[in-house]
């Protein structure tokens, strides 16, 4: 893999993710998200928690530019996304790696081809990235399953393919929705180390949505909680020993 540097980040933009008074509603429903302000610095590591249906996935969709907010503005890398041309949005999405909760692997492609997909999309040649992709798949424990199709992989294996696909481009932002939900604790820790490594060595901004408080305790990182469409920060939650000292600050969630 190429050396991990911060060179791809814009040195003049300190904020990787910014949400200003963002609300979201689907059709005629009530607001799924309401008046959310959030600002995440480049190179930050953040957890997002909340009960099922609290709006975590909707918030993540706003962050990986699958949805437009009904109100407010989502900015990535210092640029408001609402005014970008389609090609500019595509270019921005290339800087964001996403691990979907339901994996969203292409079933007719092999594990190798699924991981290589974001590289193929930007026109890179197989010969250029083959070594990197194989190394990454080996790292997530799938070195011998390169040619297996997703339907033949277990849930945990599919999840690891999805994670490898999200990080293969070494994105500036990594968004993961329940990334360790289907793997054993050992593999969960291994994957967390991968995220941390990307965060520390490359400066990738990592946002992880999870129910797994054990996972949250592994990392000293701010935790935001969604509750009825509102985002609040669990001020002292994070890392080993933080459990039990948890309290909630209903003020604006600012990192």
């Amino acid at each position, binding site marked *: 893999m190429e050396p991990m540097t911060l060179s791809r980040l814009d040195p003049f933009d300190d904020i990787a993710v910014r949400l200003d008074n963002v609300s979201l509603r689907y059709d005629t429903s009530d607001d799924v998200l309401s008046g959310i302000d959030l600002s995440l610095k480049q190179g930050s590591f953040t957890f997002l928690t909340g009960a099922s249906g609290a709006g975590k996935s909707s918030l993540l969709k706003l962050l990986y530019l699958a949805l437009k907010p009904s109100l407010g503005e989502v900015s990535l890398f210092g640029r408001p996304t609402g005014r970008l041309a389609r090609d500019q949005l595509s270019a921005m999405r290339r800087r964001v790696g996403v691990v979907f909760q339901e994996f969203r692997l292409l079933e007719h*492609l092999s594990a190798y081809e699924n991981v290589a997909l974001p590289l193929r999309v930007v026109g890179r040649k197989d010969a250029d990235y083959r070594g990197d992709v194989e190394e990454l798949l080996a790292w997530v424990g799938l070195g011998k399953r390169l040619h297996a199709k997703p339907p033949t992989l277990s849930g945990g294996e599919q999840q690891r393919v999805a994670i490898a696909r999200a990080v293969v481009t070494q994105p500036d932002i990594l968004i993961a929705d329940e990334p360790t939900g289907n793997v054993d604790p050992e593999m969960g820790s291994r994957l967390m180390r991968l995220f941390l490594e990307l965060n520390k060595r490359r400066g990738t901004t990592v946002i992880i949505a999870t129910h797994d408080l054990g996972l949250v305790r592994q990392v000293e990182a701010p935790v935001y909680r969604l509750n009825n469409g509102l985002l609040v920060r669990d001020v002292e939650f994070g890392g080993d020993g933080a459990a039990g000292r948890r309290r909630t600050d209903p003020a604006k969630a600012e990192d």
Partner: protein
Amino acid sequence: MARETPLLPVEDAREAALFFVVAALCFLAALAALSAKSTYGAARAWTAEVEGELTVTLQDVDRRAAEDARKLIESTDGVASAHLLSKDEIDELLEPNFGNRGLPDSLPLPQLIAVTADPHVPDMGPTLQRVLTQAGYNSAVDEHADWAGDVRRVLAITRLIALTAVALLASTAVAVIAFATHAALLARRDIVDVLHLSGARDRFIASLFERRFWVLGLRAGAVGALLALGAAAAAIFAAKAHGGHAGLLPELSLDYLDLVVLVLTPVIAGLAARIAARITVIRALKSMM
């Protein structure tokens, strides 16, 4: 190195059905185009042949007087040749009506003169009629160009109908492909979403569908064109096998222009499929963020 798997999976059943529909439409369109072209060719050839042809019928004259009339006609300005038909030639003309045993000698027959005139000289019929009447002949001049005009009008309408059919069939093929592309897009929404969120540009995603439907259009068009060629060849063979009575039908033959039509059919089908796919996909993607 293994070949890359296409990002859009092959959908055999759906594409086989679409292939059949597009091939059938291309077959009908190619056949209609060949008909339009052959009708146009037939109208031109047939009218060019009969324009300038006249038949003079002389009543109550013997063969010698008829020969004098022939000379008079031939000396008229604008007449290229005049031929007095023999008894045998008249028998042959009337064979479809009276059989091949010839006409009884007792049956009074007019003398017939076949005239070939310059088709660019106007009013040749009335001119000959006047010359013969002034010379004292009881004659009737039949100008083939009179009913050639009627035939030309009928052929023009036939050609218009054939061209309309070509346009309708081509539009139908484009609409069917657009519909199929939309269905394919909906069926593969999962793939499109992943590509889209991986940073694929709209034209990259559209190009996947374009390539798929370009190839489908080319292949289906080629099959349709080959079937049309077979049908045209069968029609020509059938017309010729039934002994030259195809004279009143459009000219049934295949020339290089027909081959151009047949070669263009798959190319046009492929391009139409490609453009329909592109427009459909780009429009659908614009509904996504």
